[in-house]
Structures are given as C-alpha cells and as structure tokens.
C-alpha cells in the first residue's frame, strides 16, 4: 500500500511517495517553471522510477500547493497549509507553531495535537519570501544558496529599512556605493526578511516547539535572524522543502483508510499519467 503527495509550489515541485508507516520511498524536487506546472506527470514518473513502483500500486494521491489543481491524477486537493502542518507534526510530535517560508509566500500554522487550528499567510506581496532573496541575490551577483554562508561572516549590524523587495533592491545598490561590505549588507537583508516574517507570525501566539520549513530554511543566515527576531529556538527538518509533500502523502493514507473503513468501494482508481490540459 503506497501513497503519493504532490506539492506544486510557486518555485519548486515536490513529490513524496510513502508506504503505510510513513517511510519515504522516494522524494523528488524539481523547479516549477511555466512548463513544469503542466508536467506534474513527468515528475511523478521520476518519483515512481526512484521507488521502483508502478502508478497502479499507488493507492491514493493528494495534490497541494499553488498548482494543486493542475494534477489530473490526484484523488483530492488539500491546501498547502494543512499539508505542511501535517508533515511537520509527523516529524516533530511536540510542534505547536510551524513557519514555512516558500518561494512566494510565508505562512505560520498553529498546531494542536497534530491538527492545524489557526494560520496566517502573507498577502500577495512577495516581501518576506524566497523571491525577495532571489531578486536580491541577482542584484548582488551571488547565488541564492550562497547568501547564508556569506552573511554569517558579517561583523557589523547594518539596517536595511525597506521590506519592499524593489525598494530593498534600490537600498542595496545605495549601500554598495556607500562602500559597505557584502556580508553586512546580506546580513541586514536577512534581518529585514526575518523581521517581516516575525511580524506576520506574531499575529498568532508563538508557542514552542517552533519549526521552520520551506526552501528559505536552508539559509543559515535566515535561520539565525529568525531566531533573533522571534527570541526562541527553531527546529528544522532534514529536508525543509519536503514537509508539504510529506504531509500530503500522509493525508493520502488517512483519507484512503477512512474510505476503506467506511466500506466505500476501493478509492483506487484507474489513473493515467497525463499532463494537465487545463489551466486554473
């Protein structure tokens, strides 16, 4: 009995295949481009190959993320908020607060006994998200995955006062021409992002344990700045990108077993790995 969680985020597509005890058989991450949005089937093929499984061995598929409606072979769509909360609580049983900083949104979920009870999410502005870092990295001519290590070398606290991505970009250019050091500028930017996310998160009462996920959690400079801004310890999963897809796979199992226990006809349906022909 195998289950799939498909998380089509704004930047990355993630697929996790699990067996009944939640053990992960394969995990695939790939960029979500305008093309890839229609190509969840291709990523699924890769995941199946890695796990050495056939599609008809998958009992139930849950799709989540921005592109959750673009997965024609999914049995159910569930929002990324519920899936992240479920994935995080399967990894950290004492989690009460989960913060996810993704490619174009930042969100915080309150969790009680493994169930999401409240949430906040940024509005559609990308300040305080991964896109902010991507744009700034491009302005500075460094790779986004190098930002964290560079910022840890900073010795001087530099305030970047703009939350707005575009204004921050202008501010960075000014700071560079003022002769400030790259590592101090990047550390200042990380602090600007972290204080923006912390402001969002404080709308909910922060209770430990606090878990940080999403691609941005791979940036050590952000993790440091988030800890300082929130004034608490942060737990980070081994792969912070995968919690949404993992949660989706676990929810797939739960929905499948519920359907079986209620005596419904087997929800395993004949699926074909077709590309989504519609766009919503």
């Amino acid at each position: 009995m195998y289950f799939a969680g498909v998380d089509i985020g704004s930047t990355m597509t993630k697929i996790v295949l699990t067996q009944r005890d939640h053990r992960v058989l394969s995990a695939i991450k790939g960029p979500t481009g305008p093309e890839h949005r229609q190509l969840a089937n291709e990523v699924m093929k890769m995941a199946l190959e890695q796990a050495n499984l056939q599609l008809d061995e998958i009992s139930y598929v849950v799709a989540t993320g921005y592109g959750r409606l673009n997965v024609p072979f999914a049995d159910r769509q569930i929002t990324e908020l519920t899936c992240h909360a479920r994935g995080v609580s399967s990894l950290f049983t004492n989690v009460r607060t989960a913060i996810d900083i993704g490619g174009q949104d930042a969100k915080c979920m309150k969790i009680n006994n493994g169930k999401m009870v409240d949430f906040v999410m940024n509005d559609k502005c990308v300040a305080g998200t991964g896109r902010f870092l991507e744009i700034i990295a491009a302005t500075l001519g460094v790779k986004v995955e190098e930002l964290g290590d560079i910022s840890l070398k900073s010795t001087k606290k530099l305030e970047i006062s703009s939350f707005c991505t575009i204004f921050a970009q202008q501010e960075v250019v000014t700071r560079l021409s003022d002769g400030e050091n790259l590592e101090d500028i990047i550390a200042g930017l990380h602090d600007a992002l972290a204080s923006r996310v912390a402001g969002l998160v404080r709308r909910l009462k922060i209770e430990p344990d606090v878990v940080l996920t999403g691609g941005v959690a791979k940036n050590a400079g952000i993790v440091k700045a988030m800890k300082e801004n929130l004034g608490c310890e942060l737990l980070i999963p081994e792969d912070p990108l995968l919690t949404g897809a993992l949660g989706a796979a676990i929810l797939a199992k739960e929905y499948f077993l519920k359907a079986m226990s209620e005596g419904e006809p087997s929800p395993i349906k004949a699926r074909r790995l077709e590309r989504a022909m519609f766009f919503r």
Partner: protein
Amino acid sequence: MIDKSKGLSKAKEVYANRSHRVKELKAEGKKIIGYPCMYVPLEIITALDLISYRTCGDMAEPVTEADRALPTAFCPIMRSCLDCALKAKDDFLDGIVTTHSCDPQEKTARVWESYINYSYFHFIDMPGTLRPEALEYYRGQINDFKKSLESFAGKELSSEKVKAAIRLHNRQRALVRELYELTKPEPPLISGTEILQVVKALMSLPVAEGNELLDQVISEVKGRTDGPQKKPARLLVWSSTLDDIDIMQIFEAGANVVMDESCGGIRAYRADVKLTDDPLDGLTHYYATEITCARTFREAAFGEARKDYMADLESRFGHLKHIAKEWNADGAIFLLVRYCDPFAFEMPSLKDYFDSFGIPSTYIEYDYTQGSLAPLRTRVEAFLETIS
C-alpha cells in the same frame, strides 16, 4: 427557456445587467440618483419620486482612469467606483449623493464632484461617534440633504410623503430579513450567492419593484426542491463591501454561507427606521446608529478613565454573536479589503471576541481584483480544513 417570472432568475438577470432597468426608467423621464454607500438616506430620494441606484466598483475592470485622480495605495473599491464613473459606465445618472462614512469616500467624493458634471451633487457629512451632540449635528446634515434634493426635484416634501417612503423601505428591510430566515434550515434553502444577487438587484431597482422581487423570491425559495446542497460547514461572513459573486462562490465551494454581514448582505436591512412624528428624527437615529459598519466606533460608554475591553467588544460586535448563534454558524470569515482602515482596525479585537464564545474565525485580505481570488481561495480552503 427560463421562466422569467421566477424571482431568482430575475435577480440573476438584474445582477448581470444592473443598469438595464434604471436606463428604461430614465428613458421614461425619471431622474436617477446614484449613491456609493448604504449610509445615504434613500427614503428622501424615494419620497421625491426619484430613483436611487447604488454605484458599485467592478472587480473585473482594471483600474486605469482613476489613477490620474487618486493615490494607488487607497481603498480599491472607491478607486474602482471612481474608475467606472470616469469611464462613463454610470453616465445615465442625473446626480450622486455621497457621505463621509469613511475618509476614502469623502476624499473620492471631492474628486468625483470635480471630474464629472452631474446635474446634482450632494455630500452628507457624518460624525464618527454616537454622542448626543454628534447626533444633533447629523440631524442637521439630513435636513440639509432633504432641502437640497427638494430644490433639485423642484418640489417640497411633506412629512407624510417621507413617512410613506420609510414604510416602503422598511417593508424591504423586513423582506430581506425574511429571506435570511430561509438560510436557517440545514441545508439552507437559499445560497449566499443567490442572496447576493438578490441584494445587488435591490440596489439597482426602484424600491417598490425590489419589494415585488423579494416577494417572488421568498415564495419561490420556500417551495423549492433544488436548493443548495449541504456542505461541511455553515459560515458567517463579515466584510465592508462584498459585491461580487465570484468571491461568494469561493466560500460556497466548501461551505454554506448562511449570513453575510456586509453591505452586500444584511447590514443595511437588519433594523427598521422608526416612524417618529418628525420622520427626520427616525432617519437620523437609523442611519447614525443602526447600520453596523466599522466606520463608527461603538464604545460601551464614554468618559471613563479606565476602559472595560470586554464591555467594548460587546458594544461593538454583540450583534455578530447573536447572528452566529441564531444561524448556527460553524465558523466566521472576516473578509478585509486592502487599505480599509476602519475594518482592519477591528480585526484583532473581533477575533478575540469570537474566540471568547468559541466560534473559529479567520481574517483574509484581498485587493478587489480578479488576481486576488486564487490566494483568497487557498486561505478559505485552509480555514475550512481547520474547522471541518
């Protein structure tokens, strides 16, 4: 062929083509008076045999023209209203009445007045509190409005005429309340989307025709067998303006909206205007105190050195608790229009208040564009996943 005598399909038609009827009436020589806010005393307009027509924004129309007149970080609904006016979408209006229900509305009114040449323009000032001196001042404002509209219409209003108009509008309020009784059963007999179409039709038709439509809708709905399906949750929605069924359909994809406390729903119909000896007294009281928009801060008592937070919450939001219980709501969504300060300020306290009696709630912001619907859908679905 759709039976056009049926109320719901007629409401749907009026919703889709709102100005059709007033244009017909204009061709017959009637004068049409626009108003962008439910705080305008429509009874005065009706009593003078003029037709009131609520000017709305259009979420599907990108704001372009209003950019030359208004700042961009500004109430997107007022921007959209003015944009539609500047694009001559409401060019059948003979006049417009605006009010100081909030600052964006007041500022927009000034711009509106200077850009577009209506035959009639009037601005009603409104106090921000309910203190006795404020009500006295507001009564003067209503009287000024009456005098100015009399001079536009070229006739004087008798007390009896105003009272007759109040009765007609009160009839409409009673019928809308009766309509909302029909969302109490499980599942409701009428959907939030259908009610929004009806209420927006009421804002587009002469009041007597609106009342006929309501009679039709109510008898149709009471006898229907094709009502809404039961969904996993019953929702209360609270908002400033909710005037587009695209939004309501996002809520209703996963829930039954049983109450819409916004000015696209029950807000302007919850109470009646009292028939006082001088009808302007009843109008003053109703428009100042009975419409529960966040633009007025309803403190429990003034002049106290220390504030009692819970008493203030009761005074500001008590009616919402009553509604949530009576309509058996499982959850509440507070829908906030970006840059709507009066409603934004209420959010943390309102959430505290709902927490105090154990009904889960969330607030979601959108910016009155089609582009904001996808993020809105994610938040609504996530909220419904937490409560069901």
